[in-house]
């Protein structure tokens, strides 16, 4: 189903939960609504479902405004954060609920439930009650129940929040594959950027009720359009006076510009590891943290403290050691605009003559 939202706005008392949000979603896409808790993601989802009515703005499904339609008539499936399974019904009855409402023939219901039970890997659990299932199984039931009446749009509110880390990983992959196979337009809410990046075709970053950016995970990572997005996606350090760093001292950088530098933009090591020493700064290693597959290094350059990673294959650095630091690029911003600056000294001057 093609979904379009225009100028959606919602107040809860004094609290402006959703502020002038507009977007459109192509049929069959899987969208992640990502943002910090309390940012308005769930409110947007609930308005799409009809569980909350918008203060103003329009919600359009298939080119038709659905603002006035109750949830019952929107042809949506909704997976709640804590699944909201009917606790006095068996798995079978939970999944069959939406079909019974539609007054479908008994055999057809049984057939459809069997199909979904197989699809979600719940065979053998049909006669259990929700309290007899594990978290992952409950999530699958919630998912099967939402899919049973063949909705046009699937909405998932923090679908993995209540599941432990190990199984969450499996379920993410499973969900992604399942949604692809069913081919249903889906929107899920999450505050976990890894989850959004891994599962979604496109991400919408929501912060304090506003849509900050919409795009593929790669686009958002590469070209963040606001400082909030840049700091929210990936890791980063904020540098107040970027002009102090080598290679960033022109660019017409004004005094008001601040920079955001990701660990992966920085290379660090003893002088012999660098081909272009002129582009590097000297720094002192302040802290080393072992992160399982690599070292996280805190390095002091002038008055700035930067964070980067270093492979375990390279020589291990010592705390207090003098090292060379190469900053490849920085994401710069001031109050009005933001742009990406590359290190100007990095281009090999010799290459011009060869």
């Amino acid at each position, binding site marked *: 189903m093609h979904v379009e939202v225009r100028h959606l706005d919602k107040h809860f008392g004094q609290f402006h939960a959703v502020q002038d949000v507009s977007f459109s979603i192509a049929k069959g896409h899987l969208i992640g609504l990502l943002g910090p808790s309390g940012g308005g993601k769930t409110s947007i989802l609930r308005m799409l479902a009809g*569980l909350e009515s918008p203060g103003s703005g329009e919600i359009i499904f298939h080119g038709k405004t659905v603002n006035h339609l109750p949830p*019952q008539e929107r042809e*949506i499936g909704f997976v709640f954060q804590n699944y909201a399974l*009917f606790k006095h019904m068996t798995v079978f009855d939970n999944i069959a609920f*939406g079909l019974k*409402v539609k007054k479908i023939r008994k055999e057809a219901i049984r057939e459809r439930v069997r199909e979904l039970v197989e699809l979600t890997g719940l065979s053998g659990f049909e006669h259990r009650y929700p309290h007899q299932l594990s978290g992952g199984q409950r999530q699958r039931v919630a998912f099967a129940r*939402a899919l049973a*009446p063949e909705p046009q749009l699937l909405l998932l509110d923090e679908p993995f929040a209540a599941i432990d880390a190990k199984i969450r990983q499996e379920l993410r992959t499973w969900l992604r594959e399942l949604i692809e196979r069913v081919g249903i337009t889906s929107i899920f809410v999450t505050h976990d950027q890894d989850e959004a990046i891994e599962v979604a075709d496109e991400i919408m970053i929501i912060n304090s009720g506003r849509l900050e950016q919409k795009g593929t995970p790669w686009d958002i990572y590469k070209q963040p359009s606001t400082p909030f997005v840049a700091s929210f996606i990936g890791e980063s350090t904020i540098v107040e006076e970027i002009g102090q760093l080598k290679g960033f001292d022109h660019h017409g950088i004004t005094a008001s510009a601040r920079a955001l530098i990701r660990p992966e933009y920085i290379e660090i090591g003893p002088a012999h590891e660098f081909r272009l020493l002129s582009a590097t700064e000297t720094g002192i290693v302040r802290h080393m943290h072992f992160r399982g597959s690599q070292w996280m290094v805190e390095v002091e350059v002038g008055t700035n403290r930067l964070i980067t990673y270093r492979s375990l294959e390279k020589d291990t650095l010592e705390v207090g050691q003098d090292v060379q630091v190469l900053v490849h690029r920085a994401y710069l911003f001031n109050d009005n605009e933001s742009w990406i600056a590359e290190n100007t000294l990095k281009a090999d001057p010799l290459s011009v003559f060869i």
Partner: protein
Amino acid sequence: MRRLWITLTWLVFSILILIPLVVLTTGAFDEGGEGFLQALGRPEAMHALMMTGMIVVVVTLLNGIFGIMMGIYLVRGNWLSRKLRQLFNSIVDLPYAVSPVIGGLMIVLLLGPDTVIGAFFENIGFKVVYAFPGMVIATLFVTFPLMVREVMPVLQEIGTDQEEAASTLGAYSWRTFWQVTWPSIRWAVIYGTILTVARSLGEFGAVLVVSGNIINKTQTATTLVYQDMENFNVTAANGVALVLAVFSIGLLLLMERAKKRKEVL
């Protein structure tokens, strides 16, 4: 020391509950089984017991329906402001705080034959006070918090998630109530019903004021016991009282069983 406390507790329990029960039973049979049956067989006793029975049935039905609805509106009624709901919530408990006699008096003052409303109903041939409807209203007043207070905490605990899930699956409120909400509040409603029945069986003060205690017309079992005592007809009073006591004890046992069954589920 410990022994002393145990003895004391048993003593209080006996004086308050066991001994009166024994005295009540022996009192009812002090003229033999025949005297007991005779006391119950009196036309006014039969009528009073029937009156009580009718009040219990009507009050339990009304309190069941409106108590559940009140509970739902107080917990889920988002169209009311929070403050207003809190106010209503505390007013629900009023009958606990106010003496039933005062409750009865309020009904007489509001709906009595001398008032505007009372006169209006009288004119269309519907007597409220000193008649069955007034007695039902008085008993409803006394029992109203019982159902609400049982249902509300359960509704609060289950939250709205399951109901919202049902609505996204296409179910409208009627189906959602019966298939999703009802199974969760069922046991609370059963407790509320048992408490309501027990309370309406034993209600005295409010009913006495509203009914006028007219023999063979508006007399209930409890007000009959009161009148028999006044007339020094102790055996008859004990007989009717014993019937009421047996019913109440039966209800309490039923409630215990209900609790056990709920724990199993």
